């Protein structure tokens, strides 16, 4: 795709010329391994406005986390370094107009934690067990702010209080293992937000938590986002979480975008057979218990040998309708309504017919 066409995707509203806060254009993240080239992310474009939340959904291995680590600049570029295959990154990651991929690692490091921050899935393993919670928050604050220990500590206490930790001036000296799971995730959020980042990436922030705590954490993220007016990327495989928080949704499959649009469009008028499968596999209270869920057959493809054409075609029930196009050519993201993009070979008539006959009644 040309850069102009990509910009049509990232500036989805027609006529939008304003630079989105985060704009990812044709991102590639490849890992050369002994078994072959792993194409974890292969031509991905999206954008996030200030104060908006983008939900990225997809199965394990669809490239969600790899994308977020690429934005944060946390991939190892050199293969010799620390046992991991070096990542080859291509495309553009524009944070407030600056292409992070062309900047020095040192410059990107200075942005990390300050302008962009990240919350991880399992707060127990994501916090260093050897240091107190407070020390880890203070460390995050002091690296980007020239303040003395006293001021930094006061700030850390404030942050802990803001994320709803009771008795913050006392709990600041606790170790991560002395916190409950929900408290730990709150502390992680306090750490991530300690420098008022403009972009917050939450990588499955509630997956490791109890269901009752999940809602609290989601509420907290939403409240803090409003307070700080930051952009949020919410990575999850839980469509319920996306429905709760996201303004826009990006559905990823095999390192590419399958469907991209507003939450309203995605949930009310999903257009990609994979999105249909995701929505159909959510258990529902209001359905008879003996009704089977619409599971997607098969498993995600190998990222070394991605199926030619549409990567989803081996698992797609409707690939046969496309006269072989699914096997031969890769579908590009194309608009089907303003701001709603889908990468699928189905013709609009076929799609409308399948939607009306088979999908809509079951969702």
């Amino acid at each position, binding site marked *: 795709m040309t850069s102009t066409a990509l910009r049509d995707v990232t500036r989805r509203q027609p006529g939008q010329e304003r630079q989105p806060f985060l704009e990812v254009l044709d991102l590639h993240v490849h890992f050369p391994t002994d078994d072959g080239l792993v194409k974890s992310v292969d031509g991905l474009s999206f954008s996030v406005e200030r104060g908006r939340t983008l939900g990225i959904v997809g199965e394990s291995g669809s490239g969600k986390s790899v994308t977020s680590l690429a934005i*944060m600049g*946390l991939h190892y570029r050199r293969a*010799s*370094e*620390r*046992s991991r295959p070096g990542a080859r990154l291509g495309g553009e990651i524009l944070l407030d107009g600056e292409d992070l991929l062309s900047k020095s690692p040192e410059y990107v*490091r*200075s*942005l*990390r*934690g*300050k302008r962009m*921050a*990240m919350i*991880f899935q*399992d707060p127990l*393993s*994501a*916090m*260093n*067990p*050897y*240091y*107190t919670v407070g020390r880890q928050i203070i*460390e*995050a604050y002091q*690296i*980007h702010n020239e303040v003395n220990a006293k001021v930094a500590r006061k700030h850390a206490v404030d942050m802990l209080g803001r994320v709803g930790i009771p008795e913050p001036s006392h709990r600041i000296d606790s*170790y991560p*293992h002395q916190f409950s799971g929900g408290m730990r995730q709150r502390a*992680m959020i306090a*750490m*991530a937000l300690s420098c008022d980042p403009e972009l917050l990436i939450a990588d499955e922030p509630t997956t490791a938590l109890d269901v009752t705590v999940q809602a609290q954490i989601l509420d907290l993220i939403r409240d803090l986002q409003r307070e700080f007016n930051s952009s949020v990327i919410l990575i999850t495989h839980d469509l319920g979480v996306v429905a709760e928080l996201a303004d826009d949704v990006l559905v990823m499959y095999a390192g590419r975008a399958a469907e991209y649009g507003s939450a309203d469009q995605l949930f009310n008028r999903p257009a990609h057979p994979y999105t249909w499968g995701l929505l159909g596999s959510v258990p529902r209270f209001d359905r008879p218990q003996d009704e089977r869920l619409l599971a997607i057959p098969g498993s995600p493809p190998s990222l070394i040998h991605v199926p030619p054409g549409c990567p989803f075609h081996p698992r797609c029930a409707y690939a046969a309708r496309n006269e072989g196009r699914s096997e031969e050519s890769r579908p590009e993201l194309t608009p089907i309504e303003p701001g709603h993009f889908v990468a699928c070979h189905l013709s609009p008539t076929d799609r409308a017919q399948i939607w009306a006959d088979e999908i809509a009644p079951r969702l």
Partner: protein
Amino acid sequence: MFAYIVRRLLWAVILLFLLSVVTFSIFYLVPRWAGASPETLAARYVGRSATAETVHVTAERLGFYDPVVVQYWNWVKGIFVGKEFDYGSGVEQCPAPCLGYSFITRQPVWPELLDRAPVTVSLVIGASLIWLVAGVTVGVISALRRGTVFDRGTMGVSLAGVSLPIFFTGLVSLSFFSYRLGITAPGGQFVPFSENPAMWAYSLLLPWITLAFLFSAQYARLTRAGMLETMTEDYIRTARAKGLPERTVVFKHGLRGALTPVLTIFGLDVGLLLGGAVLTEKTFSLNGLGKYGYDAIITGDLPKILGVTLVAGFFVIMANLIVDLLYGAIDPRVRLG
């Protein structure tokens, strides 16, 4: 915490008691079981041409006719209250802690041990500092430069270090550095620290380096393995995500977790060596506890063997205690109690 320390100290006392019983049994009881009479035991400590009368007197003097329990009791009593020895040539006082008199040289054991201890302590402190710093440094660099020439080279050398015995590396380095090049002190020298610190270091430099080479190899491998593991932890990614410089990530967040097993082994190694670095002391002819114990075993001098064993056991037990206490300080998840 305090109760824990008290409990551990009580355990240490019990362990030392068991240690003394076992050691005492091995050297006093087992020969009896094997059929040795008091006279045959005593015959080792008199001249070859001694008469039966002399042997009998010696056996009596050494207490070999008493039941073993009484012998043990007398020995333990000596440690706490001291005792008197009659060697025929007048009564000698042996104040507490009395570990007895050498059967052969007729010298009290405890002052001899005190005399030897500084040599071993100097050797072990110097060597352990060198191997800790060198081993950890090499291990960290190897882990961060995994697969590079540096990593392969140092790991190859460290394999050699682990495999080569000190009586090989020690003799080779003595002949090369001390006798060929003349830049280090030849073996057999020891200048007390209090006398001349510079000469103290000079006299021990080669034993330090040789002993440290043996151990730092092991520490480099341990540190490297630990670093490779901790650097893949999620919290390392978090530390990077905060924007910490790589230096801080590696040393503050990575090394901390990798050091826990290293410090455990370090405590045990130092404790073990303080009881006598036998091979090193023998190789470099240093009159430390190790060589003292070695000589005692060769001559079958029971009180000396018992004394050295007890002191060595004391060091090992204390090292264990200190390591356990350190654990609580190093890893907050460990609650002592």
